[in-house]
């Protein structure tokens, strides 16, 4: 399988955007904010986070709301929402393509890619964050369990045992299996994190090229 690719700022009009392709999955995330917030959603000391997921076909359903809730719990601890109080930060994720050979684990692979692309878009938008989050999908060899782990790759923890932000595990497993999987997940997250840093570096390098001349 070819390594994942990413493109930063594909949408010129959004404050930040990123497109991410990992195998058969292609996702596009855009960030707008901080912008004016509806009085109903206004939070006095924090920015309000609005996450919308659009499916590749059809209209949104309960499943997208569930994905939105999961995505929110993954990325919200990293965003410094207090920097822009009483504003709105809009995150839109468009699923361009997400086909799996089998129906197995589609939610998990989608979730892992979604976290990566949204974090990239947030970095592209210059939203203040505590660190960068990377996510990885880990599957038991016999298919008895599937996990998604989200670890911070910058900022975050002081020692390697820390930095676990997000877990979504399904299947039937025990404590030992989970600890082992989390270790694999952490290593994969660090790998994905290196890729993410490279993409950002590349983008910043391009943007700042005029300075070097």
């Amino acid at each position, binding site marked *: 399988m070819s390594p994942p690719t990413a493109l930063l700022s594909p949408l010129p009009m959004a404050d930040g955007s990123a497109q991410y392709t990992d195998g058969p999955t292609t996702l596009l995330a855009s960030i707008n904010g901080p912008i004016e917030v509806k*009085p109903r959603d206004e939070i006095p000391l924090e920015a309000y986070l609005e996450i919308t997921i659009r499916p590749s076909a059809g209209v949104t359903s*309960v499943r997208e*709301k569930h994905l939105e809730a999961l995505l929110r719990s993954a990325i919200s601890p990293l965003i410094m929402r207090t920097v822009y109080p009483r504003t709105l930060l809009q995150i839109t994720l468009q699923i361009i393509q997400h086909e799996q050979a089998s129906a197995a684990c589609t939610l998990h692979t989608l979730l892992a890619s979604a976290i990566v692309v949204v974090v990239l878009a947030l970095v592209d938008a210059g939203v203040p964050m505590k660190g960068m989050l990377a996510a990885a999908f880990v599957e038991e060899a016999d298919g008895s369990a599937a996990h998604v782990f989200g670890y911070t790759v910058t900022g975050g923890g002081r020692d390697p045992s820390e930095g676990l932000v997000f877990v979504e595990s399904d299947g039937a497993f025990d404590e030992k299996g989970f600890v082992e999987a989390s270790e694999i997940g952490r290593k994969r997250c660090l790998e994905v994190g290196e890729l993410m840093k490279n993409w950002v570096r590349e983008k910043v390098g391009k943007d700042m090229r005029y300075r070097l001349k």
Partner: protein
Amino acid sequence: MTDRRRINGPPEGTTPLEFLTGFTHQSVIKRSPTTLRKIFLKTSLTPPATGSAFLELPTPSSPSTPTLKLTASVYGPRPLPSATAFSPNARLTAELKFSPFSTPGRRRGYIRDGVERDLSAQLSLALVKSVDVGKYPKSAIDVFVSVLDCEGGLGDPGDGKGGGGVEVGLMGVLAAAISCASAAIADAGIECFDLVAGGVAGAMLERDGDVEVGRVGEGGDSGGARPRGEHARKVTLVLDPSPAGDYVILAAAAVGYMAAKDELTLVWTKGSMSPSSDGTEETERLIDGAIRAAIGVRLVINEAIKERWLLGLNEIGLIKEKGVGGDGDTAMD
């Protein structure tokens, strides 16, 4: 049109069950026409709400008896939403909702239908006169009633009840909702002029005409004879008619009644009266019957609220174990 915000069933649609023969396993508690069924009423079962109440009818119930179960919760007085215009009085709104599993026949959807809209409107009308709305300017009082289980007789297709006459199920639900909501308002500590109790009475057509006028209840409750088909059948006034009961109701009335002020807040009649007279007398008799039913229910509401109060006083140590310990179950004969 599928509901995007809920999980929907198979797109082909599903059908309610069809049985080989009609329902036969419903057992109905035998009682005389003027006896009300036992009511279970308890307040403060929804602690997050300002006030709440739960009503069950009849009690005790066996698994095969259809029962009416509903909860009412009250929020307020709380500030009106900023978008609404100034109001010198409190605004009372009532929402009545049937749970999807509450009715016989087809499963009920989540979207509010016409029946629920109608009952909600009647419920708020019945309640608003009892609340001292002038005491709470710029405030909203919201009443929510959830019907968890009902006895049927709602006039839905596939309800499984034929034999002519009118359906009294909705009236029973409304009357119970009024009583339960009023108890919840009192539980919320909102100032009221009086409590509203709901009562239903129906003109029952006797089967085979074998019940003599003098033998029914306390006497004098029976209406005039009315020719129907070949037999002249007796029409008897029955209080608190059960939709699951094995009789035909020709006409029925539901009232919301404030016993202390002796005022009606709501009257709802349906069915046809005797064609020989103008029906005024019979309507009056029906309404009187419904009021008598409401007075009986009122005693239960009083007991339930009193019990809760004694419990509260006991908790803060103002009184010592006196008359406390019941479960809100009040018998009525």
